[in-house]
């Protein structure tokens, strides 16, 4: 299929709104919150202009936004919402209901720090807090990936072996409010790619009535349902890859669980996610051009966490530095990606040394200079054969 491509200069929020216009969801229920507001604002205009057939529900909170989205999705149609930070926090109990009911809701979340103190800028603390809520979480490096991920998320969420909600993550302001050059596919190709939703059950199917949101406590099948949910997440490891490959074949941009730079001959590597991957890639490529055996992994899928795939890639390396844009406040355990990566490496015979860099909290900039500092320490660790300090705060005033 030859897909027509239109090159555009858009801020990340408009790129996501454009993806939503092309998806043309049946229902969008949303509430404004910085820095997500611009997505819904742009999309509302599209609804008002008659560019989509979406029924837009202006709700009074994010708790209601997710509730309305769950109700709509239960009827077998496509329902979306968007949020950020405190808004995601207010959705909390509903996040678990969306995944527990196996509803393929797609929600772009523009990553912003959680209060207190109040801060509107980027870190991953909001979505990382929802890491056990049963949602698939895909990170984006730039506006192009935010657009591409939003489209792919529909296919991933609705896959019969998955039936789980997907959060499309992009860094607040850095991606959401910066103008980026990106390629947009034509509407017909996007519609053809996503197809139509084919729900197993529908509340509006009067010929086959169902009950949704049932009570389970007397005999207790809750455990069985939760095990099924985990199976969906396990299946997602393959489906994310398959959908990413198909997207690449059709549109020329392939996606997987993660992306690598120079891992074929690297002796040590950096792992990062989100917009920081751009700055880090530049430094890694610069070092490699001067003969330094450094590699890089950009994590795209945080949920499911590709533990086995990452362990295979990192087996035998001397050292790995993990960049986390959030902290777990677990008492110097490091960030969430670090904790999960270290756990993934535990069974390896040849384990790399591991270092963690917590950076960029509340939007603190990750400069090239800071990446150089971390890369220098990583090289030193690999050469010395020991870790000077496991958890480090990069860019902290100390």
């Amino acid at each position, binding site marked *: 299929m030859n897909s027509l491509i239109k090159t555009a200069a858009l801020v990340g929020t408009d790129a996501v709104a454009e993806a939503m216009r092309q998806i043309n969801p049946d229902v969008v229920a949303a509430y404004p919150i910085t820095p997500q507001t611009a997505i819904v604002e742009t999309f509302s205009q599209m609804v008002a202009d008659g560019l989509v057939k979406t029924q837009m529900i202006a709700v009074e909170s994010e708790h209601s936004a997710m509730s309305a989205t769950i109700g709509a999705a239960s009827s077998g149609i496509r329902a979306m919402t968007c949020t950020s930070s405190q808004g995601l926090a207010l959705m909390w109990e509903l996040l678990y209901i969306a995944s527990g009911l196996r*509803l393929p809701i797609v929600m772009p979340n523009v990553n912003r720090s959680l209060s207190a103190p109040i801060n509107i800028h980027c870190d991953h603390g909001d979505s990382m807090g929802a890491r056990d809520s049963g949602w698939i979480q895909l990170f984006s490096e730039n506006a192009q990936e935010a657009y591409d991920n939003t489209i792919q998320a529909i296919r991933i969420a609705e896959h019969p072996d998955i039936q789980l909600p997907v959060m499309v993550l992009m860094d607040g302001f850095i991606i959401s409010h910066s103008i980026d050059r990106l390629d947009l596919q034509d509407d017909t190709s996007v519609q053809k790619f996503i197809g139509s939703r084919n729900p197993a*059950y529908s509340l509006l199917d009067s010929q086959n009535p*169902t009950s*949704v949101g*049932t009570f389970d406590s*007397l*005999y207790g*099948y809750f455990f*069985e349902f939760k095990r*099924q949910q985990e199976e969906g997440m396990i299946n997602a490891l393959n489906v994310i890859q398959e959908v990413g490959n198909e997207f690449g074949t059709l549109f020329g941009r392939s996606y997987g669980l993660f992306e690598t730079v120079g891992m074929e001959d690297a002796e040590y590597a950096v792992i990062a996610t989100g917009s920081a991957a751009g700055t880090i890639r530049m430094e890694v490529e610069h070092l490699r051009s001067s003969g330094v055996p450094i590699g890089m992994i950009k994590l795209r899928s945080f949920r499911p966490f590709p533990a086995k795939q990452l362990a295979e890639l990192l087996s035998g390396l001397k050292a790995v530095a993990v960049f986390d844009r959030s902290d777990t406040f677990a008492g110097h355990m490091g960030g969430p990606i670090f904790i999960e990566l270290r756990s993934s490496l535990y069974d390896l015979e040849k384990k790399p040394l591991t270092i963690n860099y917590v950076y960029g909290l509340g939007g603190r900039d990750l400069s090239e200079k800071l990446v150089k500092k971390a890369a220098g320490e990583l090289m030193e660790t690999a050469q010395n054969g020991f870790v000077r300090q496991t958890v480090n705060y990069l860019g902290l005033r100390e």
Partner: protein
Amino acid sequence: MTWDITEIQKWDWKKHPFGGTIKDPGNSRKFKTGGWRAFRPVRDENKCTQCLICYVFCPDSAIKTKDDKIIEIDYSFCKGCGICAQECPLDAIRMCDETKEQS
């Protein structure tokens, strides 16, 4: 295909329809809820005048009748709320402790 839950307690995790969705209506008859009961209503047939007030008040339709006469209390669904005993004008229903008295 109808969804028979008679053997649901023996199902493994793969067999359940996902998300706890109930895809066939009317199967609550097979979902026995009498296990909640701590007190069991026992009807004294000698005192009972078949006024059927208990039948009207029972929130779980656990008073079974035939030809306008009470034939039994269905313990598969009676949750022991005691409303029948409270409403009976002749005190013909007594609430017995499930763990101590069997009748």
